[in-house]
C-alpha cells in the first residue's frame, strides 16, 4: 500500500514504517459498506499534497513567498532563510499510523446518530512507486494474447508491467472520468509507468482503504505491444446528507488509535464496542478546541453541504480543500484537515490540526553551523518576535516572516532561519526553531582613494595627487544588548586633513527602559561635523554667480528616540554645536558676498552668523515627532505622514540665541482607485498632497533660515533660488499614474516666503535678487531609482529636464 509519497521526501524513515502499519490494519475496513448509515468515518485526508506534482508546487509557493525576506537579506548583506520543513508529512504520518477503519454497525438503532465506526483514510497516494520505477526502466511484455481483460490477481508476480493507459471508470455515473477528476490525484500510477504486480496490488489496497470508495477494482487489458491498459473502476463512497458542519482543532490531542476488533465478537459485543467508540468520539469532540475558521468559510461549507444533498467522498475532498485553502491563504502553513468524523449524521465533524506551537527555541550557531552560546541576550531576540510565534499559538508563516524581518532589522546576524518543525513528543505540535549566526562584534574598515586635482593649466601634476579615504570602526552588540559604538573619519586629503575632515562618533543604546520593557526607547549620543553649501547665499534668476558660503557645523548631539511603530516615532534631545561660515577659500566669512557689476566683489552682504564673527555657538533642544501611517500597496505608497519638528533655543551660546524654530509637514498619499493586492498586480494611481510650513520666532542666523526652491522644496528651481525667509509655506500636489512597471507623474508646486524674507537679517532674498515666492509645474517618469522630470519654472516660464535620485515626498 503506497501512501505518503509526498511526505516521504521530507520525513523518510518514520513515515515508511507507518505506512506499513497502516497496511496491516486494512482488513477492518469493509464495515463501511456493511453498515453505511451508521458509519462514523475519519478521513485522514492528506494535506495539500495530494499528487506527486504538488510538493514541488508547494515548495515553489513557499519559495515565492519567501523571496521578499530574501531580498531584504541580500540588501543587508545577510542571508535569511525561512525554512519550512513540511510538517505536513509528520502530521500525515501521525494520522496515517492509524489508517484503519472500524466498521460501523449499530446504525439501525443509532437512528442516524453517528456511532463508533471509524475508518481512516489515507489519501496520500504516491509517488513512492512512481519514483522507484522510472519510466525509462526496463519492462516485460505481458506475454498474453492482445485485447483480453485480465484480473490483477492473474498477473505474474515476476514481471514488470508497463501501463500505457489508465482509465477511471465511475460505476455510479457509468462514465469514464478524465484526469481532471479530483479522484485522479489519489492514484499514484501514471500512464507509461512500469510496475510490478505487488505494487499494483498495493495501490489497489491503498485506494480501497482510503475511504473515498466503497469499491475499487483494477482490470487490465492486454495491448498488442505488450503493455497493459488499466481500468480502475470505482464506486464512490456516500453517506447520509448532513446540514451542519463542525470544525474542531484536534492538534495536540491524542489521535484516535485504531482498535482491533475481534472478529469473534457477538452482535451484542459489537454493539457495545461501537457505542463505546461513539462515546469516545463525543468526548473527543468536546475536548477539542474551536477552529480559527471564520464564519464566512463555515457558511460556504454549509452551502456546499446543502447543495450536494448526499455527503460524498468528492464533497469531503472539496470541503477539505476549501478549509485548507483558507488556512494556507491566511498563512497557517501547517494547518491541515486530518479527518472527517460523524459521517452519516446530521452534523459532519471536520477535524483540523492547525499547527500549535509547543515550543520556541532560539539557537545560535557559529560560522560552521555548530550550536554555540551566543553573545546576544535572548531577550533581545525574543522581543522582536510577534506574539503569534510564541508558545500556544498557531504557527503562521506570515508571523514567521515578520519575525525574520524584525530580527533582520536588528542588524546583528548574518544568517537567520525561522524553522518550524513537528514536535516529536507532541502530536500535531510545532516547534519553532530560530537559528541565528551572529555577525562579528568588532569591525574596522579602511578605504583609500586617490584623487587628481587639476593643477596649473588644468593639467594634473604629481603634487596634485591627493590621497583620501575613510577610516571607520564599529563595535556592535556590546553586552549582547545591541549597544554599539561606531566612528568614522573621512577626508579627501590625508596630507592636509584640516581641509575637509568629516568625522562621526556615535553611541547607540537601545532598550533604554530595559530589554523586558515593551517600551522601545533608544538613546543615541553622537559627535559629528558636516560641511554644507548654504542655499541662503544663492542668486535669483539672472544673477551671475553669487560667491558661495560654506556652513561648517561641529558638535554634540544626545537624543532619545521612542519608536511607537516601525514608522512613527518621537525623538527629543539636546544639540550643542559650533557653526562656522566660510567663503570659497575656507576663510571665515562674516557677511555674504556679492559680485558687483564692475566685476569686483563686495563683502557687505547679509551677515552669515548671529554673532557677526563668523563663528556661532549654540545649544538647543530638538524634538521631532513623526506620525507615519503609510503603507505600500503593490509598490505604491498610500496613507498619510505628518512630521512636526521644533528647535528650541536655550539662550546658551554666542549672543545668547533664544529662538523657536518649527516646521510642520503634512503629506497625504490618496489612493484613487481600489486595486487588488498581490504580487505583480498593478499599483493604484495615487494623488499626493503635500504642505510644509516652517517658521521661526526669535534669533535667526542666516544658516537657519528656511530656503525656498530645490528638488525637495519647489522643483524646477535651484536650491534657494526663490529666497531665504523666516516663515515659509510650501504646497505641492502630484499625481502618479502607473504605467507598465513604473509610474509617470505630474506635479504642481508653490513656495512662498509669506513676506518674511525681510525678517531675516540683511534680507538675503532681496540682496541676491530673488522673488521670495514661485511656482512650478511639470511631469516626469520614474526609472528605477532615478526620476527624470521636466519642470517648468513659473517665474521665468522656462522649463528644464532634471534627473533626481529618490523620492520627493
Amino acid at each position, binding site marked *: 500500500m503506497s501512501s505518503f509519497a509526498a511526505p516521504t521526501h521530507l520525513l523518510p524513515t518514520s513515515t515508511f514504517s507507518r505506512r506499513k502499519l497502516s497496511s496491516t490494519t486494512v482488513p477492518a475496513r469493509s464495515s463501511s459498506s456493511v453498515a453505511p448509515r451508521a458509519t462514523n468515518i475519519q478521513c485522514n485526508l492528506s494535506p495539500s499534497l495530494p499528487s506527486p506534482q504538488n510538493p514541488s508546487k508547494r515548495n515553489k509557493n513557499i519559495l515565492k513567498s519567501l523571496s521578499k525576506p530574501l531580498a531584504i537579506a541580500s540588501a543587508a548583506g545577510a542571508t535569511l532563510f525561512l525554512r519550512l520543513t513540511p510538517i505536513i508529512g509528520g502530521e500525515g504520518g501521525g494520522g496515517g499510523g492509524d489508517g484503519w477503519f472500524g466498521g460501523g454497525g449499530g446504525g439501525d438503532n443509532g437512528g442516524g446518530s453517528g456511532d463508533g465506526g471509524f475508518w481512516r483514510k489515507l489519501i496520500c497516494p504516491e509517488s513512492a512507486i512512481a519514483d522507484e520505477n522510472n519510466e525509462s526502466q526496463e519492462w516485460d511484455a505481458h506475454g498474453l494474447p492482445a485485447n483480453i481483460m485480465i484480473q490483477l490477481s492473474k498477473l505474474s508476480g515476476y514481471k514488470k508491467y508497463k501501463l500505457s493507459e489508465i482509465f477511471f471508470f465511475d460505476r455510479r455515473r457509468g462514465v469514464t472520468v478524465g484526469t481532471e477528476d479530483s479522484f485522479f490525484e489519489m492514484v499514484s500510477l501514471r500512464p507509461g509507468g512500469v510496475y510490478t504486480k505487488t505494487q499494483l496490488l498495493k495501490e489497489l489496497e491503498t485506494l480501497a482503504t482510503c475511504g473515498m470508495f466503497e469499491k475499487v477494482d483494477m482490470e487490465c487489458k492486454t495491448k498488442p505491444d505488450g503493455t497493459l491498459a488499466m481500468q480502475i473502476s470505482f464506486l464512490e463512497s456516500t453517506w447520509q446528507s448532513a446540514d451542519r458542519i463542525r470544525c474542531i482543532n484536534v492538534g495536540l490531542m491524542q489521535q484516535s488509535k485504531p482498535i482491533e476488533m475481534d472478529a469473534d465478537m457477538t452482535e451484542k459485543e459489537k454493539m457495545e464496542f461501537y457505542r463505546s467508540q461513539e462515546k469516545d468520539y463525543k468526548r473527543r469532540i468536546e475536548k477539542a478546541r474551536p477552529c480559527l475558521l471564520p464564519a464566512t468559510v463555515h457558511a460556504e461549507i454549509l452551502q456546499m453541504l446543502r447543495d450536494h444533498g448526499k455527503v460524498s467522498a468528492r464533497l469531503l475532498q472539496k470541503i477539505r480543500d476549501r478549509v485548507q485553502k483558507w488556512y494556507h491563504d491566511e*498563512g497557517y502553513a501547517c494547518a491541515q484537515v486530518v479527518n472527517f468524523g460523524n459521517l452519516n449524521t446530521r452534523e459532519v465533524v471536520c477535524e483540523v490540526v492547525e499547527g500549535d506551537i509547543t515550543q520556541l527555541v532560539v539557537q545560535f550557531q557559529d560560522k560552521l553551523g555548530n550550536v554555540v552560546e551566543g553573545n546576544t541576550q535572548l531577550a533581545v531576540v525574543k522581543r522582536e518576535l510577534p506574539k*503569534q510565534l510564541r508558545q500556544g499559538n498557531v504557527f*503562521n508563516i506570515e508571523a514567521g516572516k515578520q519575525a525574520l524581518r524584525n530580527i533582520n532589522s536588528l542588524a546583528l546576524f548574518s544568517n537567520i532561519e525561522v524553522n518550524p518543525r513537528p514536535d516529536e513528543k507532541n502530536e500535531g505540535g510545532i516547534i519553532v526553531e530560530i537559528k541565528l549566526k551572529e555577525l562579528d562584534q568588532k569591525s574596522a574598515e579602511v578605504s583609500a582613494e586617490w584623487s587628481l586635482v587639476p593643477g596649473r593649466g588644468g593639467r594634473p601634476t604629481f603634487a596634485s595627487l591627493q590621497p583620501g579615504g575613510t577610516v571607520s570602526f564599529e563595535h556592535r552588540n556590546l553586552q549582547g544588548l545591541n549597544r554599539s559604538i561606531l566612528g568614522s573619519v573621512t577626508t579627501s586629503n590625508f596630507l592636509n586633513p584640516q581641509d575637509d575632515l568629516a568625522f562621526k562618533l556615535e553611541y547607540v543604546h537601545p532598550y533604554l527602559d530595559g530589554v523586558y520593557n515593551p517600551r522601545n526607547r533608544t538613546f543615541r549620543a553622537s559627535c559629528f561635523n558636516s560641511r554644507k553649501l548654504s542655499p541662503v547665499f544663492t542668486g535669483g534668476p539672472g544673477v551671475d554667480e553669487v560667491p558661495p558660503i560654506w556652513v561648517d557645523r561641529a558638535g554634540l548631539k544626545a537624543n532619545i528616540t521612542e519608536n511607537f511603530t516601525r514608522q512613527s516615532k518621537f525623538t527629543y534631545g539636546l544639540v550643542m554645536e559650533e557653526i562656522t561660515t566660510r567663503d570659497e577659500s575656507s576663510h571665515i566669512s562674516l557677511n555674504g558676498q556679492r559680485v558687483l557689476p564692475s566685476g569686483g566683489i563686495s563683502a557687505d552682504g547679509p551677515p552669515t552668523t548671529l554673532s557677526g564673527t563668523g563663528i556661532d555657538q549654540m545649544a538647543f533642544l530638538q524634538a521631532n*515627532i513623526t*506620525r507615519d501611517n503609510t503603507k505600500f500597496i503593490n509598490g505604491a505608497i498610500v496613507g498619510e505622514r505628518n512630521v512636526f519638528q521644533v528647535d528650541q533655543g536655550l539662550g546658551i551660546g554666542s549672543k545668547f540665541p533664544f529662538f523657536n524654530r518649527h516646521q510642520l509637514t503634512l503629506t497625504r498619499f490618496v489612493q484613487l482607485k481600489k486595486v487588488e493586492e498581490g504580487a505583480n498586480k498593478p499599483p493604484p494611481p495615487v494623488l499626493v498632497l503635500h504642505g510644509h510650513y516652517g517658521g521661526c*520666532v526669535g534669533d535667526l542666523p542666516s544658516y537657519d533660515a528656511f530656503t525656498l526652491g530645490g528638488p525637495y522644496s519647489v522643483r524646477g528651481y535651484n536650491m534657494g533660488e526663490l529666497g531665504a525667509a523666516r516663515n515659509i509655506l510650501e504646497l505641492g500636489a502630484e499625481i502618479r499614474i502607473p504605467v507598465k512597471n513604473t509610474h509617470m507623474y505630474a506635479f504642481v508646486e508653490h513656495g512662498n516666503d509669506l513676506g518674511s524674507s525681510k*525678517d531675516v537679517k540683511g*534680507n538675503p532674498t532681496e*540682496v541676491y535678487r530673488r522673488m521670495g515666492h514661485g511656482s512650478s509645474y511639470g511631469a516626469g517618469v520614474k526609472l528605477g531609482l532615478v526620476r527624470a522630470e521636466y519642470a517648468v519654472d513659473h517665474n521665468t516660464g522656462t522649463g528644464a529636464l532634471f534627473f533626481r535620485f529618490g523620492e520627493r515626498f
Partner: protein
Amino acid sequence: MSMASQIIREWMGIQQFPPATQTKLLELLGKLKQEDVNTLTILVMGKGGVGKSSTVNSIIGEKAVAVSTFQSEGPRPVMVSRSRAGFTLNIVDTPGLIEGGYVNYQALQLIKRFLLNKTIDVLLYVDRLDVYRVDNLDKQIVRAITENFGEGIWKRALIVLTHAQLSLPDGLDYDVFCSKRSEALLKVVHAEVRGKKNDVHGSIAPVVLVENSGRCTKNENDEKVLPNGTAWIPNLVKTITEVVLNGSKSLHVDKKLIEGPNPNEKGKMLIPFIFAFQYFFIIKPIIRAIKSDVAKESKPGWK
C-alpha cells in the same frame, strides 16, 4: 556730526538767477523763515540718468555736483550745503537706485547710512517726463523707498519730472501728456502706499516739471520756462515750500531707521508660550493619535 564737518558755503549761485527768479526765491525763503524753518534738507532720489544731479545744480544755481552723463553717477551720496541770510539749504544727491535692471539695495543702504542723524525735510523723487510707460521697476523703486524710509516720506515728497521740454509726437497735447504721465507715476506711489494702509489722506506728492537743459526756453524775464510758460525754478521751490509747510513731519534718520526693526527681537517674549503651546497642542495630540493608531491598527488575520 557729519553736517558740521561740511563747509557750509554762502549761497552764491542764487545771484546767477534772473532777478525775477531771485525775487521769488527770496520771497519763498522769507516765508519759510517766518514759519521758523531755518534749515531745509532735500533728498534727491531716483533711477540713474534721469537728471538728479542736474536738478540739484539747477536749484543751487551752480555746478555743485558733477554730472556724469553716461556713467552711473557718483557711487556715493553727496550733500551740498548753501546758506543765505541765516537760512541753510542742504541737498543730498544720491546714486541711482537701479543697477542691472534691479533695485540696488546696497545703494539704498549706503544712502541711509549717509543720512544717519540727518533730518529729511523733502524728498525729490526724480524721473523723466519723456517716458511713456510705467513698469514693474518703478513699482519696485517706490516700494524700496517706502520700505526703507517709511510711508510718511511720501507726504514729504515731490515727484520731479525732468526733460520737460520734449518734442511730442503729432497730435498729442502737452498738458494732456504731462497729466497722464504724472497720473501713471502717482498711481504707482498710491498703490504702494495705499496698498498697506488706507489712512493716507489728501493728495500726496505733487508733481513738478523740470528742464535742466541749457537750451531751455526763456521768457521775457530771462527765466527758464516750460513749454506751458511756467518758470520752473521758482515753481519748484514754491512747491517745496508748500510741502515743507503742509503740516506733516519731516523724517529724522536714526540708527533704528537704518537697520530697520530687528526681526530677531520680534516676539521673543512669546517664545516660552509658543513652546508650551507646541508641546501641549501639537506634540501631545500627535502622540495620542499615534497611540490610537497602534491600538486600532488593522492587524493581519493571524494577529
